[in-house]
């Protein structure tokens, strides 16, 4: 095992710890969900193992890993996006286009 990997791991850990400091409560869940999708990076490992292996056993184990990891990645990003879509401020943009006398002035 290469020591370079350890160096990278340690520095990346420090970076991860610095990355988020103050998060408003409403973003806790989307942030968790987005980070969860990123942890699906193991899809890369699954691809490498499944793609390069000749043994049938290893291949099928890798295949299972690939399916699970892809669920995590695809589902994770989509569900995060759906959550965040909810936080859009629909009124703001509408208010800018629709005149505000609507249903009041007349």
């Amino acid at each position, binding site marked *: 095992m290469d020591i370079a990997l350890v160096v990278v791991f340690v520095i990346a*850990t420090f970076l991860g710890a610095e990355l988020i400091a103050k998060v408003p409560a409403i973003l806790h869940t989307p942030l968790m969900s987005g980070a969860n999708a990123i942890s699906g990076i193991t899809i890369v490992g699954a691809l490498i193992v499944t793609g390069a292996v*000749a043994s049938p056993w290893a291949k099928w184990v890798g295949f299972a890993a690939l399916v699970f990891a892809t669920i995590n990645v695809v589902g994770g990003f989509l569900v995060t996006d759906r959550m965040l879509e909810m936080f859009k401020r629909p009124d703001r943009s509408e208010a800018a286009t629709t005149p505000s006398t609507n249903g009041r002035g007349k």
Partner: protein
Amino acid sequence: METVITLAYLVAAALFIYGIKRLSSPVTARGGNRMAAVGMLIAVVAALMEERILNVPELIAGLALGGAIGAVLAKRVPMTAMPEMVAAFNGFGGIASALVASAEVLRYYAREIGVAAEAGGDISAVATAAFDRPLALTIALSVLIGCVTFSGSFVAYGKLSERLKSNGFRGLRAASILVGLGVLAATVWMVVAAPAFPAVEGPVMTSLVALAALALVLGVFLVLPIGGADMPVVIALLNSYSGLAAAATGFVLSNYALIVSGALVGASGLILTKIMCDAMNRSLANVLLGGFGAEATGGAAAAGGEERPIRSTSADDVAVLLSYASSVIVVPGYGLAVAQAQHEVREMAEILERQGVEVRYAIHPVAGRMPGHMNVLLAEANVPYDKLVEMDDINADFATTDVVLVVGANDVVNPAARTDKTSPIYGMPILNVDEAGNVIVLKRSMRAGYAGIENELFYNPKTQMLFGDAKASIKAVIDELKALQPA
């Protein structure tokens, strides 16, 4: 080529870094998520170029199958079930890491018994290295963390979706310790047996299977005693674990993408866990060792024994009270999500506003079962964003408010948090609804909320209870309001 691929991984990592950063600010959050998704795409493409690919159909099938399942699940899940969905996805990620590490073991084994040679040769550069002890240790770690994440996440899923009600059994703690020792033993066994593998394959294979099985049990035992209300924190923690599992797998494969991204998620997930604990005024240790969600229910049941006077009210009385008010604050809680009454609440508010009543919503940071739960629900019902006011900004206004409508909230308006030092929620900041002129509480019964404790507010002379499902109750209030209006 290797250089190009590693640079692509670096680009992906940079996108993850910016993605996570942006996800922590409301304006940029959505872009951040998409940035991270693009990063993932780049990483996948880079991975596909890593080695000569033998099994193209399998790869396509795996990506398609996983992608389809993930997309369908993500699209179908109702808003209120999102936290458990995240838990499930997280579990999948964990098990995937464990499986990749296991596949590496099988790959070494296959090479030894000659399958590889027949089938055209195993071309992995990694697999040609010796199966030494450090490698065995990283594989063991990857399997261990991955399996704990998997089973733990699914217990969390079960609890959040209320399919799993158990909080464990007597002696669970002792059992957990035993299983933990077993996990340790299996890991040591595997590491010790590593140099002989794959020539002597028995010990490594057996210890691997044992380790996986024990780790799965451990994940269940660790999460089982934790109360359902604490599940969001648990999921955040398990998410940090699944990052670590990916990083461990990265060490197995000597892959920078996995190590960097895994470490990022591992560390930032831990920070997020801490932030979430702070928002609930709990310590992480307190959460993990089985918090109030699990234990305090007994106390509430006991307290429920005595009969105390409460004021019960009806939909038409509430309608009259509301239409004569000049300012109303709605306090939504978990019950709003259960009843799915958000659309009715919005409709009621609109009717009141047309009559000149000011209606706002007081959002407690931990109302509901996930942070932002109330925002999500009310946004879904198109409640204007600027009507939602955060706790700190609205708490001073209750004293000058005529009517507070508590819709399925309980713990977040419990004055015991302010006054009762023995209460498990003592010290948690709450919404000071008892300062308002009138308090109307919509719930189905006198049962406790998630913390499982009595709420003095319900016995306050200012408080009137409107019993029944929140959706039905609000519908009734709407009908009465309409009836009151001049035709």
